[in-house]
């Protein structure tokens, strides 16, 4: 233990061993994954996200949404992800093929978002939720993202994207000026496009959909 070169070699070996064992083998096993071609539909899955959804992903990243939300559905029998309606099957490596930044997340201060696009299909719901989470989810600890919206004078026709706030809420918060509307900024539109696209509907051969357990006979 007194000789420098031996010590260095040993330390290098330890680091290299873990990198080879975990990262390199992971790369060999999962890095070469390709999309799955469905013969019947003539499509490749997973599908590539649209440009606007891609922009929305960048907004999701810069606001740090991954600090509170995961995007990984666990297998049945391990937690209650499917029972909570967070997905019809567990997430597999192929689902993340086209993601430049894999946003698995590590905390569930908020629910898993892997399939939020299937759960909340209405853009209006998302706009309200982002503007003030208490509007759609009372008691939520999600921070309001009011900075993603603009309260501005109506120019010509009212915007179809204008938020449909409940009357008394609008009054309480001074958002009921006539001739004004609360609209999402382009960043908000992109973010909602991204959230609506978050959905893994296709079942790859390596992923089996969740089958609810048969009802127990007799008392339990």
């Amino acid at each position, binding site marked *: *233990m*007194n000789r*420098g070169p031996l*010590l*260095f070699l040993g*330390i*290098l070996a*330890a*680091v290299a*061993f*873990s*990198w080879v*064992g*975990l*990262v390199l*083998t*992971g*790369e060999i096993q*999962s*890095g070469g994954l390709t999309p799955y071609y469905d013969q019947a539909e003539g499509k490749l899955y997973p599908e590539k996200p649209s440009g606007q959804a891609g922009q929305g992903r960048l907004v999701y*990243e*810069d*606001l*740090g*949404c*991954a*600090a*509170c939300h*995961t995007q*990984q559905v666990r*297998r049945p029998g*391990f*937690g*209650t992800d499917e*029972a*909570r309606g967070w997905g019809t099957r*567990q*997430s597999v*490596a192929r*689902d*993340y*093929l086209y*993601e*430049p*930044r*894999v946003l*698995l997340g*590590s*905390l*569930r*201060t908020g629910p898993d978002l892997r399939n939020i696009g299937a759960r909340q299909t209405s853009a209006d719901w998302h706009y309200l939720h982002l503007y003030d989470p208490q509007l759609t989810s*009372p*008691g*939520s*600890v999600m*921070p*309001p*993202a*009011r*900075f993603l919206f603009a309260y501005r004078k109506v120019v010509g026709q009212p915007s179809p994207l204008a938020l449909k706030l409940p009357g008394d809420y609008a009054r309480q918060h001074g958002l009921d000026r006539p001739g004004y509307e609360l609209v999402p900024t382009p960043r908000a539109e992109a973010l909602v496009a991204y959230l609506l696209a978050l959905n893994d509907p296709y079942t790859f051969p390596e992923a089996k959909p969740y089958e609810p357990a048969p009802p127990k006979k007799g008392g339990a």
Partner: protein
Amino acid sequence: MVRPVSNAGPAAHADTGAVDASTRWPVLLFLLSSLGWLLVATVLALITSLKSHTPDFLAGEAWLTYGRVSAAGLNALVYGWSSNAALAVTFWLMARLSRAPLRFGGVLVVAGGFWNLGLTLGVIGILAGDSTAAPWLEMPAYATPLLFVAYALVAVWAVVTFRYRRLAQVYVSQWYLLAALFCFPWIYSIAQVMVVFDPARGVVQSLVNWWYVNNLIALWFMPVGLAAAYYFIPKVLGKPIHSYYLSALGFWSLLIFGSWTGPDHLIGGPVPAWVISAGIAASVMMLIPVAVTAVNLHLTMLGSFRALRVSPTLRFVVVGGVNFTLVSLVGTAMSVRSVSEITHFTHFSEAHVLQGMYGFFAMVMFGAFYYLLPRLLLKEWPSAVLIRVHFWAAVLGSTLYWLALSIGGWIQGQEMNAATVPFLEVVQHTLPWLFAGSVAWIILAIGHLAFVINVVWMLLAQRPAGATVPTLFPNPPAMQGVSGP
């Protein structure tokens, strides 16, 4: 009774005072930087904690939104406070253990400049919206090259210093410090390349990311913390480490098993099952280095607990050592699948992270600073009261945070695993525990303020004329052997 061993003639060892003096500028720079970042991290962490139960707190602007401020706080804590402190203690310890004055200190001062500049750009960048969104690697790509430059300078210095050491014996702390200095650039470069600059495709990215986070703790922070504990406990007591021959086993088993526990962060995730099993196996094997460290550090304290009343350094370092054992045991427990099913994704893991980074690492660093600063400045700590305030605030705050978020997280996990409990109800039940967490941060903040005030006061105080050693530990033979009640 073991006689002190001198491995070379007196002329070959530089005087301890001269060695300490040679480390003054680099160590002071990193130490003071670490304290600045400690205050920044404390503010950001407190804001984050308050927002976690009161989402409307400071909610108007994007730059303070929860996702950004929590990442900024984490990076300030990990790379600002913890890594600056690690480097300060490493430089001082390397010089002392080599019995040679620190050479080329100017290189380290330049390194410190680059490191802190990069950090400042990085933390501000996260708040501005340039986060990379990769856990523990959020600092944007324009900031991290500065950290590389800083680190390259440190690495070169380390190799040269080790080469010029004057003591043939290499003490256990030196193995740990060399491992830390060597491993950090490797794991950081690999992580930056494979996650930030040329991201790996698909879930391999997450594998690399968590391999990195795990190894940052197992191969950078743990070795530096253990190096300090292995030095300060025997040094303060005047007593050698118990069962020292075991320390080699502890060292190698930490490196080999500790570096494999990364997959624990991905249990249940979309990665190959055997990778996760390997991670779990490694976490169980971690019981070996934890047991060795417990024997070496805790058994050395047997019969000397009265010394805790007398020495600030010993208090901090021993508490840190105890937390090392506890946090490692919790980590092993968390890797067991049935436990992970409950604790994964909950506040329990946040509590675990802070117990490691603060309960263990920060406490040991505080202990180290209390020892080395008087020897660098040749002055005494101006206020024992402030030391006591700092110690009790640190212990109470970190224990409260750990208990509150562990209990809250456990309940959260149990309720999440009961599909009949609506999600918003699960959230509501965590609120009182998160509030206790904010109280804990306020207590920690008080401790940090007390410490920084004491440091600044000491810096500004006059050094007694003709001082060559801290006044409590003068050299005259008449004072030798006197160690108080």
